[in-house]
């Protein structure tokens, strides 16, 4: 669905805590997305997320400042125990959230039936990578916006947008999944904990660092993910960003530690019909939220005024101090 002429790209920001929500809103976020403090959302990390009262207050604060709140209930409900997910959805609807972000077909069906007025966004965890997939979710459940998986180039995003009756949101900054989201069980293979079922990837509870022969070895669930010289900077051992070896040598077989930064292609994304830009990182600090949201607010406003976009300043918030446009450029493949 092409956006109306002159429309501004919407900035959708993460908030792992009530303080981060306020920071994001004050820094210029149009929308803030967050989750309840349990396994119903895909950032189920210790010390993160919102209890019911915090969420209610967060929505009230955001609305007072003209911002929206989206609640992510985007893990796949556990068989035989759907109640926590149903309750999260019922509570989100009762609190007046502006939309919920869902991935599971069964949960989407529940939402469409029980809460027909609740606005539904399709989570990236549903990995709807084609117009055909998106049309299924729109026709079946009335989904209003789809967060696109990070597998499409800008040209492909434009083709998808021309062929669907809903909005799209794309990742614009932050940790980069190299696999199709929601279609990856690498983490549960190594640790037993998965993004789809438990809302975690490469969880800290399964990470061990140890020194060995002058090197710092990072391990995840019994597998070495990387080794670096003791004094070198060490990245968090996210499984797909590790160094491994095959018969043809060692290296970052899947992806170097790097973060997505799509600021320099914002004009192309806008022209491709994208409605909203998603910033990753509900688990990141308030300093991150403030810096990244402010930088994107400036970039989107500059774009709207037809001015050049400044894309410096966020180096310290990228993994390995390295930014990439990822799959948006076809050469990444």
């Amino acid at each position, binding site marked *: 669905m092409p956006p109306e002429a002159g429309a501004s790209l919407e900035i959708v920001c993460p908030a792992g805590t009530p303080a981060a929500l306020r920071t994001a809103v004050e820094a210029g976020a149009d929308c803030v997305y967050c989750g309840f403090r349990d396994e119903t959302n895909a950032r189920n990390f210790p010390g993160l997320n919102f209890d019911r009262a915090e969420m209610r207050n967060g929505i009230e604060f955001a609305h007072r400042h003209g911002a929206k709140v989206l609640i992510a209930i985007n893990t*796949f*409900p*556990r*068989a*035989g*125990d*759907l109640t926590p997910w149903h309750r999260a959805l019922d509570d989100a609807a009762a609190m007046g959230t502006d939309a919920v972000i869902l*991935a*599971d*077909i*069964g*949960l989407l*069906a529940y939402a469409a039936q029980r809460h027909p007025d609740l606005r539904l966004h399709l989570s990236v965890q*549903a*990995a*709807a*990578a*084609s117009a*055909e*997939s998106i*049309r*299924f979710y729109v026709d079946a459940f009335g989904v209003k916006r789809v967060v696109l998986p*990070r*597998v*499409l180039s800008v040209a*492909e995003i434009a083709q998808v947008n021309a062929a669907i009756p809903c909005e799209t949101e794309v990742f614009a900054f932050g940790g980069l999944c*190299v*696999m*199709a989201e929601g*279609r*990856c*069980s*690498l983490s*549960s*293979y*190594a*640790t*037993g904990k*998965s993004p*789809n*079922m438990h809302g975690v990837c490469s969880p800290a509870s399964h990470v061990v660092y140890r020194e060995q022969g002058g090197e710092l070895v990072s391990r995840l*669930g019994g*597998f*070495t*993910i*990387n*080794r670096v010289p003791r004094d070198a900077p060490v990245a968090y051992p996210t499984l797909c960003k590790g*160094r*491994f*070896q*095959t018969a*043809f040598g060692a290296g970052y*077989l*899947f*992806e170097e530690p790097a973060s997505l930064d799509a600021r320099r292609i914002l004009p192309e994304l806008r022209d491709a019909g994208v409605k909203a830009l998603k910033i990753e990182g509900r688990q990141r600090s308030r300093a991150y939220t403030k810096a990244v949201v402010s930088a994107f607010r400036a970039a989107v406003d500059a774009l709207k005024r037809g001015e050049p976009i400044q894309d410096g300043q966020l180096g310290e918030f990228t993994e390995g101090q390295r930014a990439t446009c990822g*799959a948006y450029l*076809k*050469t*990444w*493949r």
Partner: protein
Amino acid sequence: MTDARLTLGPLLFNWPAERYRDFYYRIADEAPVDRVCLGEVVCSKRTPFVQDSLPSIIDRLESGGKEVVLSTLALPTLDREMKYTAGLASSGRTLEINDVSQIALVRGRPFHVGPLLNVYNEATVEYLAALGACAIALPPELSRPSIAAIAAASRRATIEVWAFGRVPLAISARCYHARVHNLTKDSCQFVCERDADGLTVETLDAQGFLAINGVQTLSHTYCNVIDDVVDLARTGVASFRLSPHSCDMVAVATTFRSVLAGKLGADEAMHQLSELKTGAPFSNGFVHGTAGAACV
């Protein structure tokens, strides 16, 4: 003894056309499996190579008493990939879909759901069954309690569980086979053809970890739930999936069949499967609710 069935899943790897044909001819003639899934799931660039031999393979499999199901691509994004799948659907054969984009092609007539489509609970099973799904292969990362809850609740669709073979863990836009060889996906030279069971990925400590298969990443270990099939069948699991590898798949099927028939004990069956020389250890952690790589 159970009446659970055996399904031979689609070959996930890129085998030369002749090897591909010979493999399925032997399966048709010798393997005690009930159902065979055919078709490219991982990468659409591979599809032209085996296309010509499919009709004769299907004939041979059906002559051997096997039900033939056509499997679809797991992550289609291009127009030609959509058209390819639409072509499969118009053949009139039953499709096993691996992506939500394919539901529109099959709804209203019976179809199967492959293990690469996210079906984690009874509500999703029920929704898909209402659209026509009559057989659903669950994602390999599900544990026994989830499998049992789904099998108990599913009234219309039969439930299948991943039982043997390297486990598909992830799919990407990026081709890792090409990347390892300093190529890109568009200029890949089909280097994935060199690794009949995937390219082994080790940690920097030389511990086997994963296997690369083009845009797909699999486990290094071979999932093997021979110890659990009788128990899982009792929970209502209707069929077990054996995923093709270069080891003797007729022997694998025969062993699973004997255990399900109550003619072979699990220990002896495990011993037989250990003789296969897969080059990688077995695992069953997912079914047991722990790290998938584990062998419980």
